[in-house]
């Protein structure tokens, strides 16, 4: 596996109008060739910060003789522009399709840097980006700061449809799944065996759950595990040639649900759950402590309501 790094082009620095480059602009993008004509941008397994400029999510592209298919656009205008420049440095092809895997800002706020007519996503994701995209953008500005400068939300015009198409010698299957969010788009290049899972799979970084439906997420993991992939680009974490990412993600969401259900059955309040230490199993997983705490806020209200409802009478 060849590993290349590209410095953000100077043009981006100039375009941003900054006299002094903020930390994010001096950062390198980690871009790797993962299969025939297939590349991945590997974000850092960190939380959003001014230091990483929002570069925490993975993305990918497939270069074919008929054009380039891009999967996700990273977290800002600056990152999107650097990602596009990196793609164009590696293929002469025209960018014909840019998929947004799901609604989360670390994957889609680079849309601005790509041809508007090529942007596509599943219908619920398009609606979500329309509704909450600006709030996401504001939130990232608070967390990342200067590196978000000039970033605008661009809602994909095209609606992606599930199905397999022959394109430039690649059989590309687009799959509509759910669980990490209300609509998770998965791209499987059957020709090269490369699977882009979006955030249905995390590896070496705790999964995030702000819009999760754990039962549906499990079903999607089953579907992914049954695919004949040779390699997988997860939404966060390193490229894998096995099912370790699927397994880790499943173990994490199973553990969350079990822990929260037991806590609700024991009558724990949210603060008591937040105060619990992580089990040793997760001690070394990056962001496990902070994602556990965030997940309490996301998932506990519904789980505790189920427990309380079981004994109601009017």
């Amino acid at each position, binding site marked *: 596996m060849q590993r290349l790094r590209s410095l953000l082009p100077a043009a981006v620095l100039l375009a941003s109008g900054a006299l002094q480059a903020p930390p994010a602009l001096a950062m390198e993008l980690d871009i790797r060739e993962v299969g025939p004509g297939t590349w991945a941008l590997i974000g850092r397994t960190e939380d959003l910060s001014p230091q990483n400029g929002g570069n925490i999510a993975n993305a990918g592209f497939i270069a074919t003789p008929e054009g380039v298919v891009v999967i996700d656009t990273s977290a800002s205008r600056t990152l999107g522009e650097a990602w596009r420049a990196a793609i164009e440095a590696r293929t002469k092809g025209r960018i014909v399709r840019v998929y947004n895997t799901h609604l989360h800002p670390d994957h889609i706020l680079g849309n601005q840097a790509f041809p508007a007519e090529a942007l596509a996503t599943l219908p619920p994701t398009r609606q979500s980006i329309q509704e909450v995209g600006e*709030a996401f953008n504001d*939130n990232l500005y*608070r967390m990342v700061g200067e590196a978000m400068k000039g970033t605008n939300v661009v809602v994909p015009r095209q609606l992606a449809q599930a199905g397999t198409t022959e394109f430039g010698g690649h059989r590309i299957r687009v799959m509509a799944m759910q669980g990490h969010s209300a609509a998770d788009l998965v791209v499987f290049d059957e020709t090269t065996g490369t699977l882009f899972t979006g955030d249905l799979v995390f590896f070496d970084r705790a999964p995030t759950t702000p819009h999760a439906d754990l039962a549906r997420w499990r079903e999607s993991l089953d579907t992914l595990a049954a695919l004949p992939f040779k390699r997988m680009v997860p939404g966060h974490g390193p490229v894998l040639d096995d099912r370790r990412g699927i397994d880790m993600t499943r173990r994490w969401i199973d553990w969350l649900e079990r822990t929260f259900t037991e806590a609700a059955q*024991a*009558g724990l*309040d*949210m*603060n*008591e759950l*937040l*105060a619990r230490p992580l089990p040793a199993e997760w001690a070394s997983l990056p962001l496990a402590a902070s994602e556990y*705490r*965030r997940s*309490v*806020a*996301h998932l506990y*209200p519904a789980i*505790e*309501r189920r*427990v*309380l*409802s*079981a*004994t*109601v*009478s*009017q």
Partner: protein
Amino acid sequence: MSEEQRQPRFLLPMVVACMLASAAAAQTPADPLGDRGRWADMQRQFYQGGEIIFDPRVRIEVPANAEDAMNVPVAVDARALAGEQIDRIVVVADYNPILKVLEFEPTAVAPYLAFRMKVQQSTPIRAGVRLRDGRWLVGSAVVSSQGGGCTAPSAGRGVAGWERTLNTVSAKQFSSSAGNRLRFSVLHPMDTGLANGIPAFFIDELSIRDGEGRTVARIWPAEPVSENPVFTLELAGIQRVTQIEGRDNNGNKVLGTLR
């Protein structure tokens, strides 16, 4: 029923407050949060009529960072005040657009209440425990938030048919070595009135009764309490809660009977 009963309790301290205002002001110790809050305003509006003591035995648990500004978990725990004659507990948030969060009267239960609330931005949360002798024992904590919880419409408003489940009570009693605990929720949008075009609509009174029909605790929630509120009470000597009764500010009844 409580409005009539509450009125005198509120009036008396205000009269006394006017008489003692200068003396009380001179006695007030410095806010342990310093310039992170606006204690003087909170005291003027909510904690009048007696000596103020910032007391570490009045604990407020909040997460340092609020992941969801619409649902910030808060636990007020004054159980360390065992032996003190507690009248009521008043919870406020210095930097919310609506300052008062709720009042709680632990008539026969432990002085402990956990719930969730909306915050508009990072803010101190205060719990003032009013003793029968008029003193206020005050605890504080700061929650940091990205904000926006008070001016957003409730999530349930977007779900068709929310009126049909309005004021549905769910409850469960838990027993452990630490004692009996009651957790209950009421389905209600708890609209603050600050979201565009949606008037204030919130549960403003709840009474918790035991098997003999005695009121063992009362809660007067205000607008900042979260949508579909969930409350946790420590029942101390109370063996069995059988009824949760109340109403919202539009007069809709809340009534749940536990099996």
